[in-house]
């Protein structure tokens, strides 16, 4: 076959001329090809993606670092607020005089310090102290209300009644994230009693108004 290749001079020359006249490769073809290759290469895709991934990771880290840990205070506050609103909406149209809110509704925002588990004895003592404080320092308006209510309320029930405060159920502390059954029952009872008292107060106010208008 090599001899054939050597002896066919006419054929070789013809093919050589043909190849010489063939169109040359465009100068920018390789550059265009490289662009196409780089656009489809996985490394280019990774190069485009990694800044976004890094930014997302940093943002997530900052969000986790900045956001304070959930301690459940907000939830309780919200439920209390919602309950109060619902009660207000159920109430009759006459505007009630501003009554001092029970102390347990105000959750003091304490500085985050290491919580210590509170013993039941301490809790009971704290409740008694609070009761004493509440009874010792009544305001002028509440005094009126209390005298009215005392007349209608059962003295035995009042003696047994204990008012729960934030100190008794320190839900902001991690060890008290959940209420016990007794605490929940007591809270329900307390809420019902508060509602009853409020209704009675409203009725008393409207009765007074009626009397005043009758006198006029």
């Amino acid at each position, binding site marked *: 076959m090599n001899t054939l290749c050597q002896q066919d001079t006419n054929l070789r020359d013809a093919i050589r001329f043909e190849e010489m006249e063939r*169109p040359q490769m465009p100068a920018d073809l*390789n550059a265009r090809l490289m662009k196409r290759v780089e656009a489809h*290469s996985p490394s280019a895709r990774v190069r485009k993606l990694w800044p976004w991934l890094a930014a997302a990771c940093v943002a997530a880290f900052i969000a986790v670092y900045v956001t304070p840990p959930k301690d459940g205070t907000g939830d309780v506050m919200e439920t209390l607020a919602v309950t109060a609103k619902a009660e207000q909406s159920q109430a009759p149209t006459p505007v009630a005089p501003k009554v001092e809110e029970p102390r347990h509704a105000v959750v003091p925002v304490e500085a985050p310090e290491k919580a210590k588990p509170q013993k039941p004895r301490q809790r009971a003592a704290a409740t008694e102290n609070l009761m004493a404080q509440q009874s010792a320092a009544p305001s002028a308006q509440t005094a009126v209300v209390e005298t009215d209510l005392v007349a209608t309320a059962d003295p035995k029930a009042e003696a047994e009644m204990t008012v729960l405060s934030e100190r008794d159920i320190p839900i902001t502390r991690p060890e008290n994230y959940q209420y016990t059954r007794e605490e929940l029952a007591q809270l329900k009872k307390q809420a019902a009693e508060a509602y009853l008292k409020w209704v009675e107060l409203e009725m008393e106010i409207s009765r007074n108004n009626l009397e005043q208008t009758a006198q006029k």
Partner: protein
Amino acid sequence: MNQVTDINLIQGLLKQDSKAQRAMLERYGQFVFAQVARLVPGIENAEEVYQDVFVKVFRSIDTYDVQKSSLLTWLSRIAYHESVSYLRRSSIPVIYFEDREGEAEKLSESEVDATFGQPNPETVQLIRAALTHLPPDERAIITMFYYEEMSLNDIAYITESIPTTVASKLSRTRKKLCKIIKMLQS
């Protein structure tokens, strides 16, 4: 030296290194483009096939076997098959001479040798005209053999054939060319 640099080039291509890819294009780009342009008519079509060839080469460089063929032969194989499949796919009309009655086979070897062997500028021009009437695959084989001076083994590897088939195909093509020249002369 070239063998060593080819190995370096392949190592770079395996790592998808853009420098190695550029070096590959600089070294073998012209050769591959010529091979593609020989088979595919129209420069735009040839450019498209050329790009497809190198995209395929860069993606499947891990399938290259040094023991089976040289890098150039492997590239030629890919270029040949991409061009042929492009022609089939795009259905570009190709007009060529087909010896249905087998008249070319009737020509004697001495007659064919005399046509191609005796230097004659007129015959060269006639051969050039006759080459355009050959089908693309036959033109590619004859160019690989006479112009690029490839061995029958390499041509067989490129066309996915065996050397004896390539040899008989070359012989048939020579006779066919001779027949076309005689037709052009008459």
